[in-house]
């Protein structure tokens, strides 16, 4: 692999590029899924390929191929060179990159047990047992499905500036869900194993059957629960994967600098967090602190180096409620006059162009205990479970509809509420936070984050803990 990458880079330098990088990747993925109590699909993917970026006359070009031969990489480099020259025909200003020290390094995810080598029978047993647990607790079950997914990627990144990086990154996780139907209602509850850049221990540490049982009990309760109050204002509390999704869709995507600069207008949209707001815009209350942190060991979005060879780092996005920084690349950082990239460039395959992607975007813990937040709440709705989410093109207006809610009254969790929903503007929403817990802070994952054209799907991490939002519009008319 490394030799092939060097041959590609040599070719690029001979052609006279201003800059080039080459990524050569081999990957393996195993997905085991169970549906309605029986193995559904057992699949294995063996992938390889390379991608070449080049700057010529100040324009970008990229080409990628699956054919791992010298002839193919030479041809692909020539294609990237030609495309870059063509791009320059429309370029008004030449591409500039912020400096990054050239480095020779390697990185490997710390694992205890290789998740791809675990006997298939063992994984099937976990999934079938969880499926059975859901069915045992749910007389109204209509369908169940679950899967465990494990990935390994070996990647060499070479740049014309002298960087040589090898990385081996593991990722594994899974989820299940059950659909129940009764009393004129169809309801769903999911149970997950958050993805982590870890080994099979990430699966083993979770009692998936217990989670499936609880999910089934909750799904059943939804069939006979009262509907969420319609078109009213209420305090809400988020403390699980739906909080992770909320972070993801608002500050996560909103602070991606490429989006701010308009490079995703044709697909993923833009962001209202324009550079004039950096350092002075109040995005949240003083209790709100967000970071992008690729250094958290075992988190879904962690790595050693991004696809431009920038070492993993933690950067502040929102500090004490003030928007202070972006997720960026070498090019986008240069465009707004930043001195360094946040190290967020990632491609989902060798055939894709690296883009600014979330690593682990985390809401930092506050001072409360989660039970104190509940006890301190007079009336609110606690909402859990990723379900509906929709955000506008500028990451301002959003509407979420989690899977389940509970009414909190006088400091106690009381009855279940079905079809909860809430809507707000991003900065109003985070501005309403008055309590963030520290004791239940943990890492979650959001799967299938999509960006770019061709669309690239990745898995990213989000840290968070029980958080209270004041006076939010809930029960959107027509949504329940």
């Amino acid at each position, binding site marked *: 692999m490394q030799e092939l990458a060097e041959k590609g880079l040599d070719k690029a330098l001979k052609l006279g590029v201003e800059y080039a990088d080459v990524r050569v990747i081999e990957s393996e993925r195993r997905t085991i899924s169970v549906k309605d109590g029986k193995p*559904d*699909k*057992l*699949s*294995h*993917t*063996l*992938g390889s390929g390379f991608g070449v970026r080049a700057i010529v006359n100040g324009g*970008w*070009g*990229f*080409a*990628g*191929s*699956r*054919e791992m031969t010298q002839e*193919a990489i030479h041809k692909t480099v020539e*294609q990237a060179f*030609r*495309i870059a*020259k*063509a*791009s320059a*025909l*429309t*370029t008004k*200003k030449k591409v500039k990159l912020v400096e990054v020290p050239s480095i020779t390094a390697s990185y490997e995810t710390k694992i205890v047990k290789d998740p791809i080598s675990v006997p*298939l*029978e063992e994984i*099937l047993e976990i999934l*079938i047992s969880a499926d059975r647990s859901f069915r045992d607790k749910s007389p109204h079950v*209509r*369908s169940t499905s679950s899967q465990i997914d494990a990935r390994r990627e070996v990647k060499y990144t070479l740049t014309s500036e002298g960087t040589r990086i090898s990385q081996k990154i593991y990722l594994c996780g899974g989820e299940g869900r059950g*659909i129940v*139907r009764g009393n004129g209602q*169809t309801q769903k509850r999911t149970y997950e194993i958050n993805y982590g850049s870890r080994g099979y221990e990430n699966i083993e540490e979770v009692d998936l059957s217990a989670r499936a049982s609880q999910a089934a009990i909750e799904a059943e309760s939804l069939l006979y629960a009262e509907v969420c109050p319609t078109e009213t204002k209420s305090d809400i509390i988020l403390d699980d994967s739906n909080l992770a999704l909320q972070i993801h869709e608002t500050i996560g995507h909103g602070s991606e600098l490429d989006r701010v*600069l308009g490079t995703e*207008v*044709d*697909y993923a*949209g833009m962001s*209202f967090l324009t550079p004039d707001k950096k350092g002075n815009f109040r995005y949240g209350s003083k209790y709100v602190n967000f970071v992008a942190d690729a250094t958290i060991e075992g988190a879904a979005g962690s790595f050693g180096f991004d696809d431009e060879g920038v070492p993993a780092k933690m950067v502040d996005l929102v500090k004490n409620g003030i928007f202070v920084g972006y997720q960026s690349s070498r090019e986008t950082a240069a465009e707004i006059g930043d001195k360094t990239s946040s190290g967020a460039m990632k491609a989902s395959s060798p055939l894709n*162009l690296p883009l600014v992607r979330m690593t682990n975007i985390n809401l930092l813990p506050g001072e409360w205990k989660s039970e104190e937040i509940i006890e301190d709440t007079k009336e609110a709705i606690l909402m859990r479970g990723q379900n*509906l989410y929709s955000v*506008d*093109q*500028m990451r*301002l*207006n959003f*509407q979420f*509809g989690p899977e389940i809610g509970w009414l909190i009254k006088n400091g106690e969790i009381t009855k279940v509420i079905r*079809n909860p929903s809430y*809507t707000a503007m991003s900065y109003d929403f985070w501005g309403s936070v008055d309590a963030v817990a520290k004791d239940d802070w943990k890492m979650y994952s959001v799967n299938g984050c999509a960006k770019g*054209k*061709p669309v690239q799907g990745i898995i990213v991490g989000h840290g968070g803990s029980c958080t209270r939002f004041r006076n939010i519009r809930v029960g*959107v*008319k*027509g*949504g*329940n």
Partner: protein
Amino acid sequence: MSLLDISKWAIEEAMRLGVYQVEVTANSSLDTTTRFTKNAIHQNLASHNQSLSVKVIMQDKKSGISLVNSIDKKIIKSGIERAISMAKVSLSDPDFKTMPEPKNITPIKGIYYNETAEYDPEEKAKSVKFLIDTAADYNKNIKWSAGLFTTQVTKLAIANSLGVGVETEYTNSSIEIITKAQTIGTEGSGFAVDRKRNAKEIDFYNVALNAAEDAVSTMNPRRIPIGEYEAIFRPEATTLFIDYVGSLGFSAKAYNDGQSFLIGKLGTQVLNNKLTIWDNGRDLSTYMPQAFDGEGVPKRAIMLLNGGVPENLCYDNYTALKFGKESTGHAPISFGGPRDSPTPIHKIVDSGDATSDEMIQETKKGVLITRFWYVRTIRPDQGTISGMTCDGIWYIENGEIKHPSQQMRFTDSFVRVLQNIDLIGNKSTVKVTPSSTLPMLKTANFRFTGHTEF
């Protein structure tokens, strides 16, 4: 070796290793994407992809799947062995009966164009520059354009051990543009698209003009109150509702999983009697016609909705045999993973007789909508969805467009929207996702539930 020859070789290898049945899907593609923003190309790429997916079924009806990104026989063989090892630990699937038998398939002519395959990077850059310049020249308030120009050349082969062996080669190309207009204190946004199998037939000039015209005409938007309005949907907006009807309604899997809004309603009046929807994978008016589905079963036309009455569901071979039906040729093409639900992807909505102007004239208090963005499902069984309008919405009163509106959030049931259709446009346009052909629609009721700031 052709992809079909390689697939047949892989089938022989798998059979030699003792599998009961095997299906191979092989593809090779060259995709190019030229993205531009702020009037310049910022991402410009070409990707050569290849993959070969093997699905094996053992004698005891256990199955396994593998995917390799190579046509090297040694690597394919290791993929087959992986699929078999996975199948061996799987459990028997009593619902599996058999893979499909071969049937006569008439190839479709006019789906491959050299002009698309040979469109080189310099030509692409020049076409994009022409597009950008045409939009910029339309009006002094045009600020910039963004978008993408794509071409795809795809070879595909599907074969199984019962003798299915089909292959095809096709091309596609599309241009999408979003143009921004700006003057002091206000901004407007216009969107236009063209999709052709022959890239040389793309009408860059009119695409640029349409986007620029809408960008200028959406400057100075006003906020309209939340509530119910009559709504006219341009074809890009229409596609949202018709796609939901297809994926949540007519998939035999969704129907039997309890996720379809049509449960127990086949043969009854569910949507407006003006609405008729076919699915026909062989129809050349769709963007990506296909002679066969992902299992190599011939595509054929089926009536989905006849005057608002749902008539037929879409089946692949598996669901067809499970529920005692015949495959309708709707198995999605699957690479290395579970096959998605059988859904209609070549939907054709029968045109009506209303012009765009007539639709506006017939509107007492309503909106004209270009397209939607980030729409998600709330209640699949009731068809409830929520999302944003995007790139062009205008307020209409007493038969006249009064002013552009800020973008709005809607939360509504697509079933309700399509029950209340009162006019259907007289022209159909090719829309993607991936291949529908649709007219404009007008509905009597559409519910807005939120505002944003632009």
